């Protein structure tokens, strides 16, 4: 795997062994170990819903969504040996921008209130949602273009973005800007997929896995388990969350919109990375840009498109965060960029570029959030949380490096 191509077990004669010893299996094992440990701890503390209950799993999946979406986009950026430090501040900036657009216009605010309620534009969430995504794509395309035009390190460009967006957020949301309750973004942040939709998703997953198996057979790469392992995992989580459970309200049963959006983003990016020309070009460019260029890959366009993707996902994450929090505040998203990078690194996305996949980043984000939520459920102060997360980050990565050396 030194040539910079992603691990693709379906082309390996010893595919099953590769799958079993792959990075993702190791991550999954780590996640399961963490979950079982917390399950034991929460049961011993007499928690009503222990760590592996539907309530708790649903909470972890929901709380991991925003960072998870960022981590998916960050994977593309890191594969290209770049880094994006601006996404955390962008959560605050794009969220504030959206809240401003949706806020009541000055003309509708009673005069007596003018001083104490920040005025907005009064646009509907249905307009604001796509608009913010477009703004994200445009801003990040410009960043990507600036990078390829000047050859500047993306580190510097996005460090600029980090400071600039925070500044803009402070200007727009110098005081908290609540969003109208009950609108699209509020519902996305707090609601759950209707149960029938959840069952339809389950059916779709199973059908897709079956089709993938049939399709794979026809193409002489009989790696049925490559399709079935993630599908079975996904399906069991869906079933687990959709079934009625003790202590779970009917209104909070099933899959949160936030989780669903994260899953859609992850699947779309994973498909792009694995099965499209762009995906192949992305890994080729990240592995060795010069070789890719000689092979006819337009490496500059690959960079700009990767940044544009990051922009779209950052915008999505900012709207998810806004809905989740119900209020835009200028301090939102602090350190979110580093959480996203940490999720990628734990997930095996190499900072040297050319290697790492979306599923790894998803697992990385889940591991980080399981630690946070689990420690909260055990009532541990956040000081210890940082230390424990640091230990996991460093040890998982160190183990991976040692294993790869051998």
């Amino acid at each position, binding site marked *: 795997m030194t040539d910079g191509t992603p691990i693709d077990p379906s082309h390996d004669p010893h595919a099953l062994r590769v799958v079993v010893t792959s990075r993702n299996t190791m991550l999954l094992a780590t996640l399961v170990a963490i979950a079982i440990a917390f399950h034991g701890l*929460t049961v011993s*503390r007499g*928690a*009503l*819903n222990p760590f592996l*209950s539907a*309530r*708790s799993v649903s*909470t972890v999946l929901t*709380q991991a969504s925003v960072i998870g979406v960022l981590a998916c986009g960050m994977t593309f950026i890191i594969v290209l040996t770049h880094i994006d430090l601006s996404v955390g501040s962008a959560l605050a900036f794009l969220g504030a921008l959206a809240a401003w657009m949706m806020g009541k216009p000055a003309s509708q*605010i*009673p005069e*007596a*209130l003018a001083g*104490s*309620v920040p005025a907005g534009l009064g646009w509907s969430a249905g307009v604001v949602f796509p608009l913010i995504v477009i703004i994200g794509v445009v801003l990040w*395309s*410009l*960043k990507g*273009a*600036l990078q*390829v*035009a*000047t050859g500047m390190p993306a580190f510097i460009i996005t460090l600029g973005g980090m400071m600039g967006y*925070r500044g803009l957020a*402070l200007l727009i949301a*110098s*005081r*908290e800007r*609540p969003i109208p309750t009950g609108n699209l973004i509020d519902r996305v942040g*707090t609601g759950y997929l209707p149960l029938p939709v959840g069952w339809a998703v389950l059916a779709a997953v199973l059908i897709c896995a079956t089709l993938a198996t049939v399709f794979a057979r026809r193409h002489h790469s009989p790696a049925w388990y490559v399709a079935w392992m993630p599908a079975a995992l996904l399906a069991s989580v869906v079933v687990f969350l959709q079934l009625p459970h003790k*202590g779970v*309200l009917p*209104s*909070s049963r099933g899959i949160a919109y936030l989780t669903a959006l994260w899953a859609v983003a992850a699947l779309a990016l994973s498909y792009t990375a694995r099965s499209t020309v762009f995906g192949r070009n992305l890994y080729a460019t990240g592995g060795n840009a010069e070789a890719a260029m000689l092979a006819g890959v*337009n490496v*500059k*366009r690959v960079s*700009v498109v990767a940044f544009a993707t990051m922009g779209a996902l950052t915008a999505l994450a900012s709207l998810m965060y806004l809905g*989740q*929090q*119900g*209020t835009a*505040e*200028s*301090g*939102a998203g602090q350190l979110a960029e580093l959480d996203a990078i940490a999720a990628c690194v734990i997930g095996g996305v190499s900072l040297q570029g050319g290697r790492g996949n979306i599923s790894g980043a998803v697992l990385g984000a889940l591991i980080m959030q399981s630690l*946070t*939520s689990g420690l*909260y*459920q055990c*009532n541990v*102060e*956040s*000081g210890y949380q940082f230390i424990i997360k640091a230990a996991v980050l460093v040890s998982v990565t160190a183990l991976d490096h040692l294993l790869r050396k051998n």
Partner: protein
Amino acid sequence: MTRQWTRWLGIATIGSALAVTLAGCGNRTNEGTPTQPTDTRKEASDTIKIGMSFDSLLVERWQKDRDIFIAEAGKLGAECVFLSADGDARKQNEQCDVLLGQGIDVLVIVPKSATAAARAVQSAKKQGIPVLAYDRLILGAEVDIYLSFDNERVGQMQGEYLVGKCPKGKYFLLGGSPDDNNAKLFRAGQMKAIQPLVDKGDITIVGDNWADAWSPKKAREIAENLLVTVGKDIDVIVASNDGTAGGVIQALKAQGLDGKVLVSGQDADLQACKRILAGTQSMTVYKPLKELATEAARVAVKLAKSEEVKATSKLNNGLVDVPSVLLAPVSLDKENLVDVLTADGYYTVDALKD
């Protein structure tokens, strides 16, 4: 061809970035920036210059503090230079140094960190500039005077209100930022009211935690995970301010428990007042900021003129006994909120009922 378009995009980016920067420079000079730095104190003019360094303006109340303070100081003929550190303790010390370099006569600090701000006080002392700690005490430094509300009393009011409404039940304690000295005082006050009932066996504390930087997001996550572990089996969440209460109520709402669990608060933020009227938040503690900010402006001017200031008590900050002026807070709930706040001119009826 494709090379061309990326290059043009790049040039366009640089161009627009420059244009925005230039436009920004042309439009306004930062209100906080001084015109001419002087290293010697007071030459020609008699105008008193007050340097103000606030932790952040994120929480609504601080903007009111600033505005009332500056207005009152203006009435007394003093000029204010204001800087906000946006919640960054290091930045705050840098800003204090900047202010001290501008020939201010007195430094007013709302510290982000009770201990880190000691550095700024030391720098001020080296130049012989008096320091007023505004609303939050600075620890381990020679602060000249401390103005605040009786913060332990604030916590006690929260505790008393909650045990009054729910003398038997399960409580969760959600403190504020662990590096804010006041957060500890609020907790101490809350426990004054709650502990006797815990000892009696009527109240069970199911857990406690602290929300870093008073972050509503942290508060929400803590509450979400609390509700995972205890389900509906919780009666009271003791939140120390309105921002964290907002995060808690967001988590309660998701489980259909908003309005069913008692949640305390503090600061009488507009959103919190609306929540109290809607019944999702139980109470808030109102600290008449007008009184505090007005008094602080008067005291600051007196300090600048080296006049004597009357303190009501002394608080030890680990190094010295700091002369302190502590004002009394007011407990607000659905019953008295509108009357008290409108009578004080803090909000209009329209603002609250909107």
